């Protein structure tokens, strides 16, 4: 049981580490809900304005901004940076 839990935790961590949040500026209306809900206060809205992925040392890839965006303007994008190492 514990092992399973640990395993789940680990695979989640891997999948998160492999992802980044990518905005679709065409959907964003700069309402600020993403920035407001970011637990580490990244200004996600600014990334959306500039059309740039949220590459930020503090980003936990927790998904809060993706889930809260009322316009589905944010999505996880796989980067597969560590695919080989972690596999």
């Amino acid at each position: 049981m514990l092992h399973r839990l640990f395993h789940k935790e680990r695979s989640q961590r891997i999948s998160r580490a492999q992802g980044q949040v990518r905005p679709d500026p065409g959907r964003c209306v700069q309402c600020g809900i993403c920035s407001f809900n970011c637990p580490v206060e990244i200004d996600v809205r600014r990334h959306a304005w500039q059309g740039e992925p949220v590459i930020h040392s503090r980003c936990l890839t927790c998904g809060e901004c993706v889930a809260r965006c009322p316009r589905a303007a944010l999505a996880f994008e796989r980067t597969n940076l560590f695919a080989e190492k972690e596999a």
Partner: protein
Amino acid sequence: MTHYVLLGTGVAAITAAEAIRAHDSGGELTLVGDDPFGYYSRPGLAYYLIGELGEEMLYPYRKEDFLKLKMRFYRACATRIFPAEKQVELDNGTRLPYDKLLIATGAQAVPLNIPGSDLKGVYKLDHLADARALLADAKHGRTALVIGGGITALELAEGLAARGVRVHYILRGERYWPAVLDELESGVIESLLAQEGISLYHKCEIAEILEKNGKVNGARLVDGRTLKADLLAYAIGIAPRIELAREPGLTCERGILVNEFMQTSQPDIYAAGDVAQVFDPASGKYLLDSLWNPAREQGRTAGLNMAGPATAYIKPAAFNVTRLAGLTTTIIGAVGSGQDPDLLGIARGDSETWRQVPDVIVAQGGFEVNRLRLMVGEKHILGAVIMGDQKLSRALQNLVTQKIDITSIRAQLLAPHAPIADILAQFWSITQSLNH
């Protein structure tokens, strides 16, 4: 040195300023706006009303962003344009000379025209000041009447309900937003509204707003009934703010007519955003939008043409994602055609493209709160309404905007009871893998 003057502090003007500065770092840039709160997210007002967002979060720009654009700013209302002298007059008496002028004055609510409309306690939702005033009154008001259609009326009704106000939502028509939604979709929204405690009145009209001590006290309906209420909020459509352009003779219809380069009938005067009625080469018509992203793209195009290389505006497929009664809803391309008795002209968050439906057959799927409706043309998907689950929303956005040929799945999509979501998902993943 070129002197650029931009009228308005909405997204169209701000984006134009960014585009101008990217091409001309030395030109003189002046911004004129009459909104005391400057540049903020207008669509965000709905989330502010409902209590999901603090007021301080509505501002996308920080001080340093404004500084970077090296603009001179006048908090004033532009009152007249003199094209022959190339000057703009402000309400504080200043006359600003320009070489290139942008009119990005947006649109505002069509005023109510029933007895009692000027009473205290009657609200619209154009600006942050309106939202603030409404919220302050909602603290005291226990019952509200909401009238109008489209997204804004719903945002008003839901915002008030979320603040504990009892809401009577009065519709002239038989159902909610018939110009864009089909019967089933309107039905879904209406039942969700009822769950939020909002009472709907169909085929109803207010004859007169009743007053007590100069303030709203209720309304008398055309059928003779009366409803008690402490406040009334309306959204019966919007009108582009074209007075400034009309007076000196710029060609206007409902909006200021502009070509693909965002140029008006006067050389060196441009218009962009909600105020502009933009030539659409595909249909040969001039169309109005009231959408954030087209306003942004038009502002950018205007800025480029004012300071940089000639750039044509490419109208994106009309597209909006919004929450209707808590249900995320995406509307893409051409989806409806009817008239809407609750709206005069265009509504906020609306596009005329949604009503330009050529010959199509409708395919639909889904149940209860997940619903997908497609407008299937000869070779392409021309429009879609996606309610609830948004997994297919980006795929459909691409299928419609890029006019991807769907001949191979057309018959499948149109078969009775076809699982259209699955068919589309599979088609999209194959299309994508072929492109990679």
